[in-house]
């Protein structure tokens, strides 16, 4: 469900790409520092986006070169200096936990060996994060239950499903207030809706093979067939629509030091990813982003 919110590498300036990498590494460092080395496993592009988005207005990131486990020889630039990093780290641990629980549930006892291992691996990190953000944890649990229930009754409204997931992301703006909160909620809601639908399209093949519920399959009543070109065009428009509404909300926010990269993600990165997912090439592309 994660990893779709990323910049279009080819359109980033060198300076911006270095900054993006520093934020990615900074988030990884924050995860390790706050939740132990095991938590670094949950590092995702999506939460790098969240950390940049929640970054407070005028603050500049503190950059310093450090070594880490992933690159012990060469030093990498790491950004720090705002609470948004800690919040993004906490949210990502909680979401990763519930995502793993969901996978275990879907896959059954034997096929979920890896997922059960991962669950054990991040349990301590999850407990700590859940204690720090109990309301967010409760909200994710609620939404996951809702999704589970809707899957069981075979809900065929794509929006109804996406809504449950999008609300989780919208809740990431809980620490803000006033107009800024409203803007962030709308922005994150549409990013969440976009992620949910893109993920559903991406999983179509896999879900069909495993005989699992897939919201896009239900919406277009595919019953095992592939998406027609017409359906794909329709999905592309509805995804672009969410993207446009997120971007329109973004333009109302105050600029911060990550704005150019965020614009790249919202206007270009998402378009690129949805195009790749719909054409089935997403898994094969190498985009040169940090790993």
């Amino acid at each position: 469900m994660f990893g779709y919110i990323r910049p279009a590498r080819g359109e980033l300036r060198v300076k911006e790409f270095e900054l993006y990498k520093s934020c990615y590494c900074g988030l990884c460092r924050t995860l390790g520092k706050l939740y132990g080395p095991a938590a670094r496993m949950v590092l995702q592009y999506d939460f790098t986006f969240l950390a940049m988005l929640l970054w407070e207005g005028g603050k500049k990131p503190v950059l310093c070169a450090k070594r880490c486990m992933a690159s012990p020889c060469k030093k990498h630039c790491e950004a720090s200096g705002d609470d948004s990093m800690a919040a993004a780290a906490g949210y990502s641990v909680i979401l990763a936990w519930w995502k793993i629980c969901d996978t275990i549930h879907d896959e059954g006892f034997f096929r979920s060996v890896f997922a059960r291992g991962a669950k054990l691996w991040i349990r301590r990190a999850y407990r700590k994060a859940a204690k720090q953000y109990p309301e967010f944890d409760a909200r994710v649990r609620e939404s996951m239950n809702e999704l589970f229930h809707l899957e069981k009754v075979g809900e065929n409204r794509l929006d109804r499903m996406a809504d449950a997931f999008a609300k989780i992301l919208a809740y990431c703006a809980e620490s803000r207030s006033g107009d800024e909160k409203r803007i962030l909620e709308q922005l994150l809601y549409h990013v969440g809706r976009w992620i949910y639908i893109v993920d559903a399209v991406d999983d179509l093949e896999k879900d069909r093979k495993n005989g699992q519920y897939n919201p896009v399959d239900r919406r277009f009543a595919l019953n095992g067939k592939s998406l027609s070109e017409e359906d794909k065009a329709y999905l592309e428009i509805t995804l672009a629509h969410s993207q446009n509404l997120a971007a329109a909300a973004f333009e109302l926010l105050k600029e911060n030091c990550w704005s150019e990269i965020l614009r790249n993600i919202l206007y270009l990165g998402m378009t690129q990813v949805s195009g790749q997912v719909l054409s089935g090439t997403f898994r094969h592309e190498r985009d040169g982003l940090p790993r």
Partner: protein
Amino acid sequence: MNDPYVVLGASPSDSDEEIKKKYRDLVKKYHPDNYNNNPLADLAQEKMKEINEAYDAIQKMRERGSSDNSGYSGSSSYKSRGSAEFAGVRSAINSGDLAYAERILESSANRNAEWNFLMGSLCYRKGWLDEAQRYFRRAVNMEPSNMEYRQAYARMQNADSTYRPAGYQHHGIDLCDICTMMICADACCRC
């Protein structure tokens, strides 16, 4: 009030032309059309007001008559054009009281074109774009001559993409062109 130059992202050394260009770019960005029936429309409107005031202030500072450009003004809330039955629903959607609007619509037995249109508007406000598109399409099918419904449906089909900052354009056909083409085609078809 904030420094008008900061509001427009310009500097005092910029020429009148440059200021005008920046002003126009911002107007395009925050134009009410980009925030039609959007929960954040009020904020965009505020922004628009701020930009207009800043532009006027700069014009005055530069001691030029502002007769040639008095700024853009526009209102984003759409006028109620429908029947009396759903007037309350329309104003509820406009003011953002979605729960009330939904309750009234769900309990209404009269599921005509306007009902579908309003359901579409409601879904749109919630961010349920797929559902919104389906309701708008139904409304257009039931009453093809209604411009309000058709506009709403057309906006869904071009995914509300009216603005993109410079440097973030897609390659290929501009969606504005498609829209213009559709309007032209539409004008030709009507007898």
